[in-house]
């Protein structure tokens, strides 16, 4: 390796570490809205962006992936109103069927919330944490800044690329080695790419800090923010363990758009303590567990089915157990059974049967629990009780799509 090449390689490594290095926590108190109420874009790039997202929003508004629950829609809007006050009118929220734990905010105030998020929240404060984070992106005009940052840096990348052709050509014509120029250009451009990713991570850290302040101001316990990241990390670990893999946080990369999960959790927890200490007199917080349970109850069976159907047993069992920290019920027991049945490892059939039996012992068991319990009993050779259980299923779901099949099973 020539000396110059070594220098270049050193630069690249240096930049990579700079890209991945832990950045300082953003203080919630520093976060202010960058746009006033009723903001409309004025610059050409921002107007174009809003126009583009307005078209996308029209598609989403008529999408068949919408959750289609007016009650949950009102509930989500209510939480946003609590977080943003009058400014809530600038946002529109769309609840979309998507199993991934995620939500997003468009520059024009269109917020998308996945069912995968609804499935994982344990109280209103956790839900508000994510909505608050997305609202912060809007109030800080992050999409626009991200676009402008990327536009500048990709512009420089293009100039460096084109300039390198010229420099290398001239060097070659002069009898010098042209490769050095190409190495230098690659180093500069790699650093710029890392810098783009670093910029988006800084925005996410801002949104976390601003979001936790918004929930604290709305009277939610600010600790809910770090609690939800704790759950995300535990879930990822459970998933990796169940698949026999080593847990590795994919967000711990210089190319990640978001800061590492653990870092976010620790920062949010520090911010929460800071906010709690600063509230004088000490505020009484309410996580809204009961309100959340009431709002999510009619949807939970569908939300959990969507998750368990993915057959990632680590995730399914973690999710069920995490939700059961607030108490087991018939639905959670049934879901536990389904997770074991789908995993189908030695002993899982018995575990599933136990879970189904516990499910039907509870008054709030879903009708499907009776079916599952019935089949489990039939398999175990307990024909009488198995038939009784299947009959209970048919009583509760006479119009079920598999009713004819279950009736056939009863005749045997």
């Amino acid at each position: 390796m020539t000396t110059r090449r070594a220098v270049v390689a050193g630069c690249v490594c240096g930049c990579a570490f700079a890209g991945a290095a832990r950045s300082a926590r953003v203080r919630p108190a520093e976060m202010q809205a960058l746009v006033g109420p009723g903001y409309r874009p004025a610059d050409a790039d921002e107007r174009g962006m809003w126009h583009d997202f307005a078209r996308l929003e029209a598609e989403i508004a008529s999408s068949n992936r919408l959750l289609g629950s007016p009650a949950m829609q009102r509930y989500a809007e209510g939480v946003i109103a609590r977080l943003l006050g009058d400014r809530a009118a600038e946002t529109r929220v769309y609840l979309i069927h998507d199993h991934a734990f995620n939500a997003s905010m468009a520059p024009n105030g269109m917020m998308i919330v996945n069912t995968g998020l609804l499935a994982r929240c344990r109280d209103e404060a956790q839900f508000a944490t994510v909505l608050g984070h997305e609202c912060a992106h809007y109030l800080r005009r992050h999409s626009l800044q991200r676009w402008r940052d990327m536009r500048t840096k990709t512009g420089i990348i293009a100039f460096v690329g084109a300039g390198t052709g010229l420099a290398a050509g001239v060097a070659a014509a002069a009898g010098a080695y042209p490769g050095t120029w190409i190495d230098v250009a690659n180093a500069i451009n790699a650093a710029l790419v890392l810098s783009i990713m670093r910029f988006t991570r800084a925005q996410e850290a801002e949104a976390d800090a601003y979001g936790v302040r918004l929930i604290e101001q709305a009277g939610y316990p600010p600790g809910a923010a770090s609690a939800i990241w704790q759950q995300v990390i535990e879930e990822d670990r459970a998933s990796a363990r169940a698949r026999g893999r080593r847990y590795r946080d994919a967000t711990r990369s210089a190319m990640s758009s978001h800061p590492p999960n653990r870092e976010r959790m620790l920062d949010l927890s520090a911010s929460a303590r800071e906010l709690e200490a600063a509230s004088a007199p000490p505020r009484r917080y309410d996580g809204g567990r009961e309100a959340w349970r009431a709002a999510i109850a009619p949807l939970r069976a569908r939300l959990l089915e969507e998750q368990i159907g993915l057959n990632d047993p680590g995730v399914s069992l973690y999710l069920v157990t995490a939700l059961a920290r607030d108490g087991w019920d018939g639905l959670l027991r049934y879901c536990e059974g389904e997770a074991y049945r789908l995993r189908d490892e030695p002993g899982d059939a018995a575990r599933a049967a136990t879970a189904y039996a516990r499910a039907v012992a509870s008054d709030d068991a879903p009708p499907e629990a009776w079916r599952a319990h019935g089949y489990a009993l039939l398999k175990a050779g307990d024909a009488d009780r198995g038939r009784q259980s299947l009959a209970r299923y048919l009583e509760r779901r006479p119009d079920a799509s598999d009713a004819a099949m279950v009736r056939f099973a009863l005749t045997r």
Partner: protein
Amino acid sequence: MTKRMRGAILAAVTLAGCTQTRQVADIGFRPPEGRYRLIVMRPDVSVGLLTAGGAVELREDWTLAARANILHAIEAQQAARGGTVTVAATREVAGSTPAAVADLDRLHQAVGTAIRVHKYARAKLPTKKGRFDWTLGDDAVRFGRATGYDYALFLHAEDSFASAGRVAVQALGMLGCAVGFCVIAQGGRQAAFASLVELKTGRIVWFNTLASSVGDIRTADGADRMIASLLDRMKPGSAVTASAR
């Protein structure tokens, strides 16, 4: 001027002045004539600025102007062809229900993308060799029955214009070409496609794509030209399917 430089400039000029269209059609397709009813579904038009880095930044004013120009150009172009033509500027005026129209639009987007990937681009499908038999199926037939149209025409058009920064990158790249290290930066360009759906059967009977490095659909004249290149010379299936092998 060196020979190499002359070559590079010639190549750049040739690239700059190019408009290409390529149509494919169902083997039995004949361009509609006589008494037919055609609806042009809400054209999907976007115009933006090509940044130095090569991304397209959408411009609202350019897009709105181009959309109006394209609608007008289609009306004028179709008026000369004899059929009864309705141009739907929005989904609401296309007939049937807005939800059904939106569904059909999305279905067409998916099938149109498949055509471009599997018929035009490299990912050719062996089962589609030498034929053109894509369909929107029952949704399109139902739409035709509900509205009474014989054909639906779908159209997508985009245009972009190089920013000053992009022009500088292109110039720098071209200088590199002169000394033997070429970094070609593409300039602004037009891309469009149109497809004709026979609503009796739901089949896409004709499809055309356009790629151009000249033209400007922000102007009425530019939009007329694009629509003329895309729709004027609709050929019967027997003439184009063989070439689409």
